[in-house]
């Protein structure tokens, strides 16, 4: 426990110091925080509950549009803002920007949670591949629908409010970094707390044998929906931050970007080891570093390199990095290996 505390404090200090130690990497670090949040929350379904969802991108995109719309709509007519021929220039004052962002983020978290509850109620009865395919459709549909809604810019895209002139040139990067780091900490603390409760055991029971869990009197549907709602809450927050960070929202390429973000969050959780607390975090970090590296050193071939990485992961680390470590050093994970007993078993064979 003491060791744990040192670790957490260490990471917290690292997190707070990071933008000052590596000032040029603020944007990458903010994106890393968002990626970790997405991977960690995907892991609630994909890892702990055994429901491989490709639909979490829906909540992410929804959060992005909602946050930006609220931020603009609170102070200016939204339709005029997004209309491309609009000759008027609207400028947020710093107070308006931050107030809008705060309210926007709250909406961006709450609405997707409700949506997750409603959608979950109707589709969480599906299992296995059927659920995965159904959720795959959610993101695609949302992208196409939002691309037709004029008030949020439709195919034109939505330019989010520019960061106001406060402080120095670095303040924008620092603001978004600390915001995303705060959400990351919030996510981690929440998920960690959840994983110590009976709720996690129920999710695991659903994963291991849903029928049996039901037979034991667990209302599996209720827990599945709650699990998904928790994910949606944080995905929405992550989306809201990402929208402000990118500065421009496009329906299929930025918001409901199922092809990239939607797949990456799955990949990161699997790379790190699904069904563990630290797996998605390590997975997202390793993935992000590899990805940024590939982009710099394999220009034009980055997706080929990424493809090779995925193949290597599947072949050599089918259980993810955490799974591999656990197999290699079981005693470090608190598993007691009785050498005598192990040998005896080997000899028996």
């Amino acid at each position, binding site marked *: 426990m003491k*060791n*744990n505390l*040192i*670790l957490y404090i*260490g*990471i917290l200090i*690292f997190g707070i110091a990071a933008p000052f*130690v*590596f*000032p*040029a*990497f603020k*944007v*990458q670090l903010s*994106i890393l925080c968002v990626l970790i949040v997405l991977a960690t929350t995907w892991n609630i379904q994909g890892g702990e509950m055994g429901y491989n969802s490709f639909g979490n991108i829906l909540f992410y995109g929804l959060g992005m549009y909602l946050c930006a719309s609220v931020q603009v709509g609170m102070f200016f007519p939204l339709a005029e803002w997004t209309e*491309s*021929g*609009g*000759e*008027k*220039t609207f400028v947020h004052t710093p107070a308006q920007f931050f107030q809008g962002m705060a309210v926007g983020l709250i909406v961006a978290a709450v609405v997707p949670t409700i949506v997750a509850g409603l959608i979950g109620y109707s589709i969480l009865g599906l299992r296995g591949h059927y659920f995965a395919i159904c959720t795959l459709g959610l993101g695609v549909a949302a992208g*196409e629908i939002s*691309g*037709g809604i004029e008030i949020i810019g*439709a*195919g*034109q*895209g939505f*330019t989010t409010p*520019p*960061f106001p002139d406060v402080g120095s*040139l670095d303040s*924008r*990067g620092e603001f978004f970094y600390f915001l995303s780091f705060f959400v990351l900490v919030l996510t981690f603390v929440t998920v960690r707390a959840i994983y110590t409760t009976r709720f996690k055991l129920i999710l695991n029971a659903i994963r291991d044998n849903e029928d049996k869990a039901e037979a034991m009197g667990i209302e599996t549907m209720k827990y599945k929906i709650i699990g998904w709602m928790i994910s949606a809450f944080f995905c929405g927050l992550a989306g809201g931050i*990402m929208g402000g960070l*990118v*500065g*421009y929202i*496009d*329906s*299929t*390429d*930025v918001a409901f*970007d199922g092809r*990239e973000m939607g797949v990456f969050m799955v990949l990161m959780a699997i790379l790190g080891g699904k069904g563990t607390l*630290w797996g998605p975090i*390590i997975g997202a*970090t390793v993935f992000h*570093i590899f990805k940024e590296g590939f*982009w710099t050193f394999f*220009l*034009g071939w*980055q*997706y080929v390199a990424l493809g090779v990485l995925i193949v290597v992961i599947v072949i050599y680390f089918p259980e993810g990095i955490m799974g591999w*470590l656990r197999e290699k*050093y079981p*005693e*470090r*994970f*608190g598993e007691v290996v009785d050498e005598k007993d192990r040998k005896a078993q080997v000899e028996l064979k």
Partner: protein
Amino acid sequence: MRLNKIILSFVSALVILFSTSVASFAKVVGDKIILGAAISLTGKYSSNGVHTQNGYNMAVDRINSMGGVKVGGKTYKFDIIYYDDESNPKRAAQLAERLISQDGVEFMLGPYSSGLTKAIAPVTEKYGVPMVEANGASRSLFTKGYKYLFAVLAPANLYLDVAIDLAVEKNNGKGVTVAMAFEQDAFSQDVRLGVLDAIKRTGSKKVIDDKLPKELNDMAATLVKVKQMKPDVLVVSGHTKGALTAIRQISEMKVDVPMLAMTHCDAAKLSKQHGKNSQYALCASQWHKTLTYKDDFFKDGMTYDADFTKEFGYAPPYQAAESSAALLVFKDAFERANSFDQKKVRDALAATNMQTFYGNIKFAPGGQNVDKPMVLFQVMCDDAGKCENKVVAPTKWASAKLIHPIPSWSKR
């Protein structure tokens, strides 16, 4: 918990990795002016991304070999750092941030497409990095009050409104019926707004107004409607893929329409890929080789066309020409500013008033080029099936007469 040790060592490895990977360039190193550009080398805009890159490279080589840029009595050469934005706005914004804060770039060239330019402009604006862009035509780019954005091209709403005017003129000044099909992206939607304005202005009527998905491969549903409604004009815009898809399906389905107006015909190499099937298509273009503009570096359009074809093995679409022009603008501005101070260069850019082989360049306060009209060309083929793009409007540059209405498929 031994696990913590693993994680701790992991975190420290990360720290070491980050701190060793900071490699910084400066804007001007030795005798080099380093420009940054995020280009779509992969993804849906990859073909136009390559046209853009070829255009930039061609101009860099030409300017460097003809004496470079003279600032403060010293001669400098251009160099460009490229990244691949994968045709994705999110990525483009990140790369702009990266070029500026990590690579130390102080002057930028634009990406391909309006959407990506929209994503990059807030970043360059924030850092006060002057950006000359050649491929972001969306009108909304120029109404945001950006001070550091300069576009050498005419805005997107001017692309096809001339076509509607032409159709009305051919209809003895009476309004026409217009069918429209536009891709769901920033550029095409802006072209749509321009066409809508023209429809209103001329008292025409829109009969079909379809939105087409990105990565356009099929527009049969729209064409079925066109066959039924028989509009006077069919307007299609969806980048290169839109142009290719439209011609392919119109010829397959034998859709008869008196006027077909499109964008991106030359970038799609329509006349080469579809030959006679693309005949009579009317295309909006920022530039055509037969225009009579001149400059010292590329001489004129015909010479540029020949030189480009020699170097890259295909005729330059206007996307390449305007990209080359962006470098000429930068060179001119650096020399007039006689400094590498970003503000001074920005002011020099704003005061640009020059002629290049691509056209006259003069920026409005919003950053768009107001001194260069669009041209319309029509694909025309001879009996042997050899097709060429000939300028038909405006009359000042027309090298051929508009063929109207398009003969029906049964008579071709």
